């Protein structure tokens, strides 16, 4: 069993590979790993309540931990109360903590 953290900079509206990245996170979880997805840059765009992405919603309905980078949200004027459920707000500190803990950190 491993610990994975994906730094998710891509969004499903402009990058078709994003849906596969979401699925990989869920598959790794189903295989018994611990998985966190840290949304950064445009990766935070599907986190808005009115954003339509079945693939992202499936990620939220799994037990993958999803964190949205506060800075990226602020840049896009997305407030915390506009976010879908099951999304935590955090910082890049999470990525550094994971690296220092020896987790597998992957940039998407």
């Amino acid at each position: 069993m491993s610990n994975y953290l994906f730094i998710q900079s891509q969004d499903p509206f402009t990058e078709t590979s994003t849906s596969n990245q979401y699925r990989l996170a869920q598959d790794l979880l189903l295989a018994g790993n611990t998985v966190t997805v840290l949304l950064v840059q445009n990766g935070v765009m599907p986190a808005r309540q009115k954003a339509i992405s079945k693939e992202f919603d499936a990620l939220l309905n799994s037990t993958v931990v999803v964190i949205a980078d506060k800075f990226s949200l602020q840049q896009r004027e997305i407030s915390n109360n506009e976010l879908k459920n099951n999304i935590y707000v955090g910082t890049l500190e999470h990525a550094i903590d994971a690296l220092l803990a020896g987790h597998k950190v992957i940039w998407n």
Partner: protein
Amino acid sequence: MKSTNEQTLTFAFMDPPFESERTVTFFRLLDAALDKGANIRVFAYEGAVSLSLSLQKAHGNSIHGRNAEEEDHPLSKDWISSLQHKAASNNLKFEWINCGLCVDERGVTDVIEGCNRGGPPDLWRYASESLNTLTIGTR
């Protein structure tokens, strides 16, 4: 703040300056790593070798009537320099190697102090000796 070899992180980055939001995120990650007491090693390759180009110059914005000082245009060489100073003031190591092949292709030979020339074997060495490595690709 003290750090050991076990707290050294390597970052591999290939984006040029002034073109992608990834560059900002990359520098934010380095800053956060220093805040966590980690030593940092950067292997810059492809366009990222221009991040440390010493000839970078801030410019004004004549359309908006601002001079260079008012425009306060950010330069990646200054961000690197700031991180170097932050690391030194916290007794942390901050190493930076530009891929020599990529430097020669681009003629980016004038770089700021503390950024050195190397090659792909240095990335292997960095990664082998670090606690962890993050590779940030362009896609």
